C-alpha cells in the first residue's frame, strides 16, 4: 500500500532528498513549481518546491534558498552530489507553474506561474541537466511525487486525475 511506503515530504519553499526506496512528495502546487532531480544509477532523488523565479527580488534577511529557482536548483544539485550522485547522470522532471486566477488587467505577479517554470528551465539548462518531462501551466493545482526507485513522477490534480511522467 502506498501509505506504508517511506515518504519524504517537501513543504512550500522547501527542498529535500531521498535515496534507496520510497517517494518524495510535495502537495498543492499552484503557481509554484516542483522540480525533481534523479540519479537513476544510485536511485537517488531530490525535490524542490520553488515559489518565486529569482532571488534578485528577495528582501528577506536570511535568504531561504529553497524558495527561488536560481538558488534552489544549485542547492539541490549540491545536496545530491554530497550524497554521491553524479551531476552528469542527473535528469530532471518538473510540474506546476499554473496560473490559478486570471484577471483582465494582469499585472506581473499574475504571470508568476509561467515565470517560475521558465526560470526553472533556464536554471536546469545552465546546470546542464536534461529536462526529461514536464507538466506545467494550466489553471489548476497539482500534487506530485517521485518514486526514487524508478524515477517515475506521479502528478495528481482535481481536474485531470493522475498522470505519470
Amino acid at each position: 500500500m502506498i501509505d506504508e511506503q517511506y515518504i519524504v515530504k517537501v513543504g512550500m519553499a522547501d527542498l529535500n532528498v531521498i535515496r534507496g526506496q520510497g517517494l518524495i512528495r510535495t502537495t498543492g502546487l499552484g503557481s509554484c513549481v516542483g522540480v525533481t532531480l534523479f540519479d537513476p544509477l544510485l536511485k537517488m532523488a531530490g525535490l524542490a518546491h520553488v515559489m518565486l523565479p529569482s532571488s534578485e527580488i528577495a528582501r528577506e534577511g536570511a535568504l531561504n534558498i529553497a524558495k527561488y529557482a536560481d538558488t534552489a536548483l544549485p542547492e539541490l544539485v549540491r545536496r545530491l552530489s554530497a550524497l554521491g550522485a553524479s551531476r552528469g547522470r542527473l535528469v530532471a522532471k518538473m510540474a506546476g507553474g499554473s496560473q490559478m486566477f486570471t484577471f483582465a488587467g494582469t499585472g506581473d505577479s499574475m504571470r508568476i506561474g509561467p515565470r517560475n517554470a521558465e526560470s526553472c528551465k533556464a536554471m536546469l539548462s545552465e546546470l546542464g541537466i536534461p529536462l526529461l518531462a514536464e507538466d506545467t501551466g494550466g489553471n489548476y493545482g497539482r500534487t506530485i511525487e517521485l518514486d526514487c526507485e524508478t524515477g517515475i513522477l506521479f502528478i495528481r490534480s482535481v481536474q485531470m486525475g493522475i498522470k505519470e511522467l
Partner: protein
Amino acid sequence: MDLFKDLEEFKMDVLKEVGNIGAGNAATALSRLLDKPIDMAVPKVQMLPFEAVAERVGGAEKIVLAVFFRVEGDTPGNLFFILSPEAAKKLLHRLAGLKVESEDSFSEMEWSALSEIGNILAGSYISSLADFTSLSMTPTVPALALDMAGAILSYGLLQFGEMGDSAMLIDTTFIEGQHEVEGQFFLIPDPESFAKIFTALGVPLDHD
C-alpha cells in the same frame, strides 16, 4: 520584516478589529441575503508559516471553493472567501434556489451565482474597512477556483514570499445558525500595507 518581528498584543488587536469589521459587515450582508442569522467567530490574526496557511482550511490537498479578490488602492492585499464545495452547494440552493445537480462540479450558472455572492460579500468587507480607515480600497472582479487549498492560497502569499516564509493572515470564520453553511474570509494585506493601516487607525509606529 521588522514590523512583524514583535507585533505587540495591541497591534494584533487592531488587526482583529479590522477582521471583525470587514467580516462582520460581510456576514450581515449574507444574513440579509439568506434571511437567517449568521454567527461569526472571533477573528484569528497570526503570522503563519506558509505551510500552516492551508492547514487553516483542512490541509494543502483539501478541495475548496475559493473566490479571490485582489484589493487595490492605498493598502493593496489579497482577499479570499473560502467554502467547502458542500457549503457552496447549500448556499446556492438557499440563495438562488439552484438545484444541486452534481456534487463534484459546478455549472456555469452556479459559478456565476457564486461569483456574484462573492462580489457582494467582498464588497461589504472591503467597503466597511475603507470607511473605517478612510483609506481607498477596491476589490477587483472576483476570480473563482475549485481546487487544492494549497494551490489556491499560495497565490495570496507571493507578496510575503519576497521577504520571508510566513504571512500575516486575518482569518474570520462565519457560520449560519444551523451550521449548514460555514465559510472563511482570509485577508492578507501586502506587507507594505500594514504601516498604512496602523497609521490610518492612529496606532503609533515605533519602528524606524
